[in-house]
């Protein structure tokens, strides 16, 4: 991915010099950058990796998944807080993730923690097990696990 | 003349060279080098006798502290000449005596250095015209006396005596200094001559009397007048030559000199008369009474000296009356007293010097000076006995010795004094006369004690330390010379009168210059007048008292005698130390809290007090900017957070609350439009919090304050008062802004300094110096923390400073 980005920047710069204007303009550079994107998109198979902008797309997708989860669980938690009588049954449960790298585990934990109702308490030394505190473990365990799976999948799309 | 000035310095110069010579000639022969100095000076001064007798005076000035009017001015007149001759003459004899007296084992180099130091200082005192220079030497004599008294400093009593004399004489000196300064303030000059010339205009100033008292304080302490006489007996711890020289012949007479010198200045004042003669007469009595009960010969001589000094002092007091009245033919009545004083001064130096030396010989040969262990020495020590006899009889006022002459004149003066107008009643004068007479009786008694209890009676070899021998010839030379003088003066008193006393009288009565009768002709026989009858009475009663002494000596055990000033002095010193200790401990408890309380109490008292006193609490809220609700809420929260800090149980909670406060202040800074401050505050607060947490690892959890309820309440009151004052003052200032701030200038920052952030331009340019130093402060703190942590003294246990 860095190689692709560098190449893209190089193309943009080249473009700018080719234009041979009086002064250096950001717009020219930007135009060159766009050109570069096009070139690289067509050539990315030669690198043997994904087209780097695809990750951007996937990241945006992850963001949307996150926002929707965030909204849903926010409402749930706000409701719980505001309900006249607390009916929650909090608890800590264990989740073994399929994610491997530090970055992936971190991303998963961040997303999970950001969404209301769940906090990652510990990561096992091996990095494959998350201990999660949930606000209402009985009710939302299934939902949470579904959420986790969702996130895992989206993360993997970005990172791999 | 420069030579006179030099004569002061010669002893000092010699004092510098003595140690060098002493390193080579490590023996008593060092004294032969030293003695050159006083002899040469004596001859030098003596060479002035003729011209001074003819009325000349000599003056020489070396400019010293121009701006303060302090110059090194020497002035040689009749008065200073007498003293100068005494100093050098007796000095020569004493050094001669000491060469034989002191053992080679003593640190002679040191001894002679001190002695020369003293000699120079004493010459300085009597030859200085400038009050400040006089004071310089005055204190120097105290110091050299201090050093000489404690010559055997390993003895506790020597140290005690030295300390006592130093404390008393230096204190008196300081008082005198204040008096001198007052004189200068009035007259604008430090020169005695100038002051004498102009003092007439200033006698009405309120300071005049104060200055008089202060100067007298100096004189009395130095001359061991009651009640300051207590140091003199203890000064006898000094080697005997020193006692003979400083503590009888010269230094103690510095006070007398001062009184004589200042008579033209203060003499016209009735208070001068009352105090000088009153104290003198009383000292005379006290001294003689005390002398009689002494068993240590030296102590006896010490009290006798006190007494004799009192005598001379009182005479000077009486003589001053002449100035009170101004010149008239009757003045002679009074000036005669002064004349007698000067005469007795010289006589006393001769007979007392001789007596001291005798006592020294006895001590030196027998190892004791206790009269209870002595007796019958006459047979073994004939020369010594002769000298003792001459000295004692002179002191007792018997003919044919010089003491008789001056004693007679003393009585005459007293008889005349009864008629003084300033003594409002005749009884008063009579009283003085009676007191003086009684004192003379006792003087007679103790003089007899010296002669008879030492040299007559039985000799008990077992009571003394050493086998008895007559002293070596060398040791006898000096006292013999003095004894010869005692007799010689009796027969040729007018040589002294004309050559020495006359010019001195002229110095004391400058306004009477050349007046008739200022210098009376001294006669041994002037018929059966009151004075002679008094002397006869003294002899008769004195003899009776001496014979029957064992019957009445018991009175000394009565309370008034037991309660003596020495005990009072010692008690007051220890009271002073203990009192100081008690008082200091009272507030110096070592608790930080106490110290802080003092500071805050002081703050409340001064600042708070002055707010109330000056009424600086006018407020003006009209200029206040409005408060938004959220701002109010924030401030309220801050108040809550701050208050909670007092009650939280955990230090970490307190830190969190502190953090809250810090962050809230950052918010306030935002509200007050101070972005840079808000940024800094936030970061600093965080780093501070981190530091707290870092350090908490090492520190224990805080405990509940275990202070008493009372303490808490008083702390609370102090805290509330402090806070209130800060607020009140703050509000008062806001209502009283007197000027526009200079900061408007900085709004031109971009043009002036090329920066658009005004605060930053102030920090980086207008007030960059502050910033630079602030960086230094930070740096010092950083390196300091490093040092504090890394530098640990390795051997604390052995560390001696840490107990």
């Amino acid at each position, binding site marked *: 991915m860095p190689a692709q980005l560098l190449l893209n920047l190089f193309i943009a710069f080249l473009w700018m010099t080719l234009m041979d204007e009086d002064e250096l303009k950001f717009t020219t550079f930007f135009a060159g950058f766009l050109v570069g994107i096009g070139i690289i998109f067509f050539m990315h198979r030669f690198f043997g990796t994904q087209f780097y902008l695809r990750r951007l797309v996937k990241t945006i997708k992850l963001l949307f998944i996150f926002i929707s989860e965030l909204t849903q669980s926010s409402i749930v938690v706000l409701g719980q807080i505001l309900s006249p009588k607390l009916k929650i049954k909090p608890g800590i449960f264990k989740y073994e993730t399929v994610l491997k790298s530090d970055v992936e585990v971190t991303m998963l934990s961040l997303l999970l923690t950001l969404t209301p109702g769940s906090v990652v308490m510990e990561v096992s030394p091996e990095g494959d097990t998350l201990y999660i505190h949930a606000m209402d473990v009985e009710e939302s365990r299934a939902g949470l696990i579904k959420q986790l799976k969702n996130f895992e999948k989206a993360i993997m799309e970005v990172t791999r | 003349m420069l030579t006179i000035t030099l004569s002061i310095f010669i002893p000092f110069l010699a004092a510098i060279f003595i140690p060098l010579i002493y390193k080579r000639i490590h023996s008593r022969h060092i004294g032969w080098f030293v003695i050159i100095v006083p002899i040469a000076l004596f001859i030098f001064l003596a060479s002035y006798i003729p011209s001074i007798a003819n009325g000349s005076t000599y003056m020489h000035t070396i400019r010293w502290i121009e701006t303060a009017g302090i110059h090194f001015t020497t002035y040689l007149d009749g008065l200073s000449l007498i003293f100068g001759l005494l100093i050098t003459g007796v000095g020569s004899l004493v050094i001669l005596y000491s060469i034989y007296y002191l053992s080679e084992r003593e640190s002679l180099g040191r001894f002679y250095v001190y002695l020369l130091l003293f000699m120079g200082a004493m010459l300085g005192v009597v030859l200085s015209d400038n009050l400040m220079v006089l004071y310089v030497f005055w204190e120097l004599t105290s110091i050299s006396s201090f050093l000489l008294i404690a010559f055997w400093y390993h003895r506790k009593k020597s140290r005690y005596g030295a300390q006592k004399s130093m404390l008393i004489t230096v204190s008196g000196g300081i008082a005198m200094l204040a008096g001198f300064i007052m004189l200068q303030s009035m007259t604008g000059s430090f020169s005695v001559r100038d002051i004498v010339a102009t003092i007439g205009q200033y006698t009405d100033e309120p300071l005049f009397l104060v200055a008089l008292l202060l100067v007298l304080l100096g004189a009395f302490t130095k001359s061991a007048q009651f009640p300051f006489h207590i140091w003199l007996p203890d000064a006898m711890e000094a080697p005997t030559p020193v006692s003979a020289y400083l503590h009888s012949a010269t230094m103690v007479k510095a006070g007398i000199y001062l009184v004589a010198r200042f008579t033209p200045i203060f003499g016209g004042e009735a208070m001068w008369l009352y105090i000088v003669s009153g104290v003198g007469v009383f000292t005379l009595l006290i001294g003689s009474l005390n002398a009689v009960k002494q068993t240590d010969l030296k102590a006896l001589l010490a009290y006798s000296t006190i007494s004799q000094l009192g005598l001379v002092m009182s005479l000077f007091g009486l003589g001053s009356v002449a100035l009170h009245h101004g010149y008239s033919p009757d003045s002679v009545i009074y000036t005669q007293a002064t004349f007698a004083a000067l005469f007795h001064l010289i006589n006393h130096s001769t007979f007392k010097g001789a007596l001291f030396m005798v006592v020294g010989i006895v001590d030196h040969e027998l190892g004791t000076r206790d009269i209870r262990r002595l007796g019958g020495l006459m047979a073994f020590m004939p020369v010594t006995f002769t000298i003792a006899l001459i000295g004692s009889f002179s002191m007792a006022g018997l003919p044919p010795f010089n003491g008789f002459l001056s004693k007679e004149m003393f009585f005459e003066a007293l008889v005349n004094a009864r008629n003084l107008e300033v003594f409002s009643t005749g009884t008063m004068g009579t009283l003085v006369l009676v007191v003086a007479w009684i004192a003379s009786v006792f003087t007679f008694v103790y003089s007899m004690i010296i002669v008879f209890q030492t040299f007559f009676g039985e000799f008990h070899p077992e009571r003394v330390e050493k086998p008895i021998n007559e002293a070596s010839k060398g040791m006898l030379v000096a006292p013999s010379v003095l004894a010869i003088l005692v007799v010689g003066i009796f027969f040729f008193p007018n040589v002294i009168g004309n050559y020495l006393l006359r010019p001195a009288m002229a110095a004391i009565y400058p306004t009477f210059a050349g007046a008739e009768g200022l210098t009376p002709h001294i006669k041994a026989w002037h018929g059966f007048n009151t004075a002679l009858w008094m002397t006869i009475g003294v002899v008769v009663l004195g003899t009776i008292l001496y014979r029957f002494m064992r019957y009445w000596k018991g009175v000394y055990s009565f309370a008034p005698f037991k309660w003596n000033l020495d005990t009072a002095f010692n008690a007051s010193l220890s009271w002073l130390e203990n009192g100081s200790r008690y008082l200091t401990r009272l507030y110096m408890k070592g608790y930080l809290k106490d110290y802080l309380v003092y500071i805050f109490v002081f703050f409340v008292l001064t600042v708070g007090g002055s707010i109330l006193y000056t009424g600086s609490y006018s407020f003006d809220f009209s200029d206040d900017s409005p408060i*938004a*609700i*959220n701002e109010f*809420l*924030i401030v*309220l*929260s801050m108040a*809550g*957070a701050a208050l*909670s800090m007092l*009650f*939280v149980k*955990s230090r*970490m*909670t307190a830190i*969190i*609350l502190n*953090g*809250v406060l810090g*962050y*809230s202040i*950052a*918010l306030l800074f*935002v*509200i007050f*439009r101070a*972005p840079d401050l*808000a*940024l800094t505050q*936030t*970061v600093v*607060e*965080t780093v501070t*919090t*981190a530091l707290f*947490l*870092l350090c*908490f*690892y090492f520190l224990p959890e805080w405990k509940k304050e275990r202070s008493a309820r009372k303490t808490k309440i008083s702390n609370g009151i102090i805290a509330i008062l402090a806070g209130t004052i800060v607020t009140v003052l703050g509000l008062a200032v806001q209502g009283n802004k007197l000027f526009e701030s200079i900061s408007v200038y900085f709004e031109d920052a971009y043009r002036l300094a090329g920066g658009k952030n005004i605060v930053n331009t102030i920090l980086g340019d207008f007030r960059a110096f502050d910033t630079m130093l602030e960086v230094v402060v930070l740096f010092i703190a950083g390196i300091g923390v490093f040092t504090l942590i890394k530098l640990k003294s390795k051997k604390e246990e052995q560390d001696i400073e840490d107990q």
Partner: protein
Amino acid sequence: MIEMMLTVSLILFSITISIAIIRIVLGPSMPDRVLALDMIGVNLIATIAVVSIILKTKAFLEVILILGILSFIGTIAFSRAIERGVIVERKRDR
């Protein structure tokens, strides 16, 4: 209208801060307090953002970011202190 909304939200943030201080005082556990502190930090950020709008200035936008950074660092420091006592380790055994 906008003014009103901003003012109201400012007040709301202030209320939050006040209540969070109560939590700090009440505790009961130390993490509770740090949590509240963290929350205050966040609300301060919000407050400053709104103040910036009201004052129509960009001068304080840096403060927002700084506050975000530092409340994070602060929380880490506190949780380290709570967890291990020592907040900066010389050498971690791992």
